[in-house]
């Protein structure tokens, strides 16, 4: 079985993003960019599927400008076999636009399983995997914390608001990774060197015959209302007094 995994280049999760002074967008000039943490988990899971024999090949795909090749390379260093770069200048593609492009890649590649992150930590959309599944008319399991391929099915445990739910999907299927699915491995230097020689194909929306479609227009971006730190209290008694008499929440 071939596994396709979609990765997104995003701001590194340790960086605190700032809004541009003109409120047009956030300021991404000179900030550290990384692979979206949930995508990293999806990559790790697909590599583990290959190591366990459940998968035969892991193909990683990313959509965006040239720089996304870095994230494809880091997925290759983590153990993916080859990469597909869908070249677009647009860094603000909607979830639907990404899903449409991924759907076309899936039709060409015919994987048995597609893994995505549950959420990109820049847009916090949490929608692309579900949209992809809908466009393909495939079953889906979002927010996966456990995944097991069992014959013609994949059994997935999902983190839901009330606890955990387990579903069995008939392959091919789409699964989105949550944080507790696994802990990604540490990538060693020789793996990075090896990844440089792995194949990386380039394609484009035009080559995939996917038009731009309608969008969601960004009218502006503002900073959140800042919360100012309050006071330090000296004792538990002082804390209780403040909560009771000043804040009146007890």
């Amino acid at each position, binding site marked *: 079985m071939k596994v396709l995994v979609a990765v997104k280049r995003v701001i590194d999760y340790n960086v605190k993003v700032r809004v541009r002074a003109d409120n047009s967008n956030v300021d991404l000039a000179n900030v550290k960019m990384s692979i979206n943490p949930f995508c990293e988990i999806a990559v790790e899971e697909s590599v583990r599927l290959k190591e366990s024999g459940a998968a035969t090949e892991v193909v990683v795909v990313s959509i965006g400008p040239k720089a996304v090749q870095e994230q494809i390379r880091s997925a290759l260093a983590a153990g993916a076999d080859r990469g597909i770069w869908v070249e677009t200048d647009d860094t603000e593609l909607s979830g639907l636009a990404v899903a449409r492009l991924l759907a076309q890649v899936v039709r060409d590649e015919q994987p048995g399983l597609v893994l995505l992150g549950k959420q990109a930590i*820049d847009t916090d959309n949490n929608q692309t995997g*579900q949209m992809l599944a809908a466009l393909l008319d495939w079953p889906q399991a979002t927010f996966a914390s456990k995944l097991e391929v069992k014959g013609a099915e994949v059994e997935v445990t999902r983190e839901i*608001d009330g606890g955990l*739910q387990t*579903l069995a999907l008939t392959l091919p299927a789409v699964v989105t990774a949550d944080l507790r699915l696994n802990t990604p491995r540490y990538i060693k230097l020789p793996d990075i060197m090896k990844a440089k020689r792995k194949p990386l194909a380039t394609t484009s929306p035009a080559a995939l015959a996917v038009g731009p479609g309608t969008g969601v227009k960004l009218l502006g971006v*503002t900073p*959140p209302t800042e919360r100012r730190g309050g006071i330090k209290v000296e004792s*538990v008694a002082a804390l209780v007094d403040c909560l009771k008499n000043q804040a009146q929440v007890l």
Partner: protein
Amino acid sequence: MSILVIAEHDHHQLKSATLHTLAAATQIGGDLDVLVAGSGCQAVADAVAAIPGVRTVLLADAPAYAHQLAENIARLVVALAPGHRHILAPATTTGKDFMPRVAALLGVNQVSDITAVVGPDSFRRPIYAGNAIATVQVEDPVIVATVRATAFPAVATTGGSAAITPVPEVFEAVRTRFVSESLVESDRPELTSARIVVSGGRGVGSAENFALLYRLADKLGAAVGATRAAVDAGYVPNDLQVGQTGKVVAPDLYIAVGISGAIQHLAGMKESKVIAAINSDAEAPIFQVADYGLVADLFTALPELIDSI
């Protein structure tokens, strides 16, 4: 112009997230229809019918909807979509699961997690873990959006008398099979709607030590929350995680115990009215957002706190 809202419930009771979603719908304006899809969920439909301002309750009652499988709910919503300009659901794990599927089947975008209604087609939503707020305008003929419950008030639950219309079509996907569910049972208030939340982090140190937080919570009638670190370490189940990738809460009082205050955690609780923090490290970032900070060892502070209230 009318709006279709998908109710969240456990087949017996309506979840409060629906009431907040209806408030967002009311701000958009238009006739409100509410879909109740479930199995043996007449009581939920009755509850929705009593909400003032609801025009029609669409009741899809069938075993196929027992587990709210995205494949089935999405098909049902798409079948009911014609005539509605907006389709809204709470941004819970259920809504997040099926709504993007609805959007894609309709060939439109989804606006996730809206926190304000600017106009009928423009909304505000947090991005980058809430470190920026985007204002977006949707260009699609149908607007599909999920609603962050804590950003909107709850609508009233009595006084209305909407008609209940059964929806006979049943959509049942054959390639998704429900296997099992382990839902955490608790007598404490629900995390996302509790007036007070007591939350613990890695500093709490173990599952056994979390008993201290439960004791405090029970004294206060509060819900218990946690950080990702506390969940990952196995101190508490995953459904307690608060943050960018967990639940979003905005109680009157949030008590953070042994929590450093990472941006991913703050994303889920910084809209709380009052934040109190107990941490042994005076430099912990949580103090930058806390209204009341106590620099102390939680193992001495918590028992004292429990005794003094």
